[in-house]
């Protein structure tokens, strides 16, 4: 019984190649400039903000953590949050359909959508 054989390198290289390829698919899966920023909490759509109007909204998510989402120049970003890691605040503004900013501690997602139609929120679990 061995955990590693010489030829395993081939499998691992392929996985790495697929991973690199996935970043390209990732880039192309994102569509053109979107129309709405959909703010969801715990997977449920809370509000949608048109990207054409500058706005600022503070939403309260899981465990009372809040995120302030602002729309400026057709792009959405999280400008303030009281979550511990602040990853959402560090995320650059998003404007293309399919892009999203996730604040995991607060369970808040901001997703750009290009039409009135629902995207991820359409599926119930």
């Amino acid at each position, binding site marked *: *019984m*061995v*955990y*590693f*054989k*010489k*030829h*395993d390198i*081939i*499998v*691992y290289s*392929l*996985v790495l190649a*697929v*991973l690199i390829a*996935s*970043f390209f*698919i*990732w880039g192309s*899966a*994102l*569509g053109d400039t979107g129309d709405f920023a959909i703010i969801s909490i715990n997977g449920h759509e809370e509000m949608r903000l048109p990207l054409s109007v500058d706005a600022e909204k503070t939403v309260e998510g899981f465990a009372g953590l809040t995120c302030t989402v602002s729309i400026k120049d057709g792009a959405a970003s999280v400008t303030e949050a009281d979550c511990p890691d602040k990853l959402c605040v560090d995320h650059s503004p998003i404007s293309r*359909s*399919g*892009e*999203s900013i*996730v604040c*995991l501690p607060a*369970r808040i997602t901001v*997703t750009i959508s290009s039409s009135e139609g629902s*995207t*991820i929120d*359409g*599926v*119930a*679990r």
Partner: protein
Amino acid sequence: MKLKDKTPTLALLGIMVAAAFILSYLESLLPSISGIPGVKAGLANIPTLLVLYTQGPAGAALVSIARIILAGLTFNGLSAMLFSLAGAVVSLIFMTVLKKIGAFSITAVSVAGGVCHNIGQLAASCVMIGMPILYYLPVLIVSGAVAGALVGVITTLTLKHLRSSIKEG
């Protein structure tokens, strides 16, 4: 194979389905590490992999699919079950081929299986939910590889201890 010889195999497969079902359940109780659906350790694939290595692909497919249907109908939910089935089919095909080639360790086969499982699962959810979910692709590939490595190592260890008691078919 004579009918008489099938009994140990049937018993083993039954035990493996039960073990996989329990592992599935235990895993559903664990809090999600990342908040991203589909990112998990995949412990329920240990029995699948054990059967693949001792009884062959048909048995592995049976254990895997039976487990997913059982878990789907009881606690995982129908949509998760459909995504899982898609992932399991892709993963089983790749693992069977890699195992047939024979040059790879169980760990590598398992890593490939984990990655393929997540890709198949994501492909199914793309069809049902839409393209934006591809956002998770890179994360799911990495998590599939890590989970696959873990499952592979555990399976290798388990197999070492079970070799004497499992009849290989």
